[in-house]
């Protein structure tokens, strides 16, 4: 079984500032990793995913994440945020032979002008 810990429950940030959302996972098998965004009253939208290959993954809306196997981390970053990035962000993991996703508790990002 896999589990995910999102280390920050809330992250306030000013517009045009950088942001990093931290995610650590636990698994006894090789994993796939995901970041999802959820805007108010909407479903989950995939930001990016790591399946294999380069450990630096680029996603939509200027987000990127880096897979660090030795530290079992998959932190999400954006160099300059916009007001529209205000949302809930979820890190998720699945085993490579099991597509069942395990989610973290989420990080609420609030971008202020």
């Amino acid at each position, binding site marked *: 079984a896999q589990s*995910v810990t999102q280390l920050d429950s809330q992250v306030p940030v000013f517009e045009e500032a950088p942001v990093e959302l931290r995610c650590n996972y636990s698994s006894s098998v090789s994993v*796939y990793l995901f970041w*999802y965004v959820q805007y108010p*009253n*909407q*479903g*989950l*939208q*995939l930001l990016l*995913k790591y*399946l294999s290959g380069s450990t630096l993954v680029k996603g939509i809306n200027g987000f990127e994440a880096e897979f660090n196997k030795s530290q079992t981390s998959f932190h999400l970053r954006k160099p300059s945020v916009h007001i529209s990035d205000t949302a809930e962000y*979820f890190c*998720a993991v*699945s085993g490579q032979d099991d*597509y*069942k*996703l*395990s*989610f*973290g*508790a*989420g990080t609420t990002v609030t971008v202020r002008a």
Partner: protein
Amino acid sequence: GAGVSQTPSNKVTEKGKYVELRCDPISGHTALYWYRQSLGQGPEFLIYFQGTGAADDSGLPNDRFFAVRPEGSVSTLKIQRTERGDSAVYLCASSLGDGGYTFGSGTRLTVV
């Protein structure tokens, strides 16, 4: 369809009643998943279908919960004798089995 469609978007029901939540996946997606998201938490896995069969139902909390996918497309999540603790957003996702999921907007269930 273009995306995963879930109906209804909102459902309010009285404690003890039976409810059905529907998920219409992306055409051609063989894998279908149900998740439950309680307030302030991440989604939790309920059940996974591959085609018509439930490949993994280990996340269903108890025998009041049941899901079907009779023709390998539309799925219905059924909850009997609803309890206030069942109140949550129920999310459906579909996939081609390649590690990419598409989630629906969810059904917000409120048991009063």
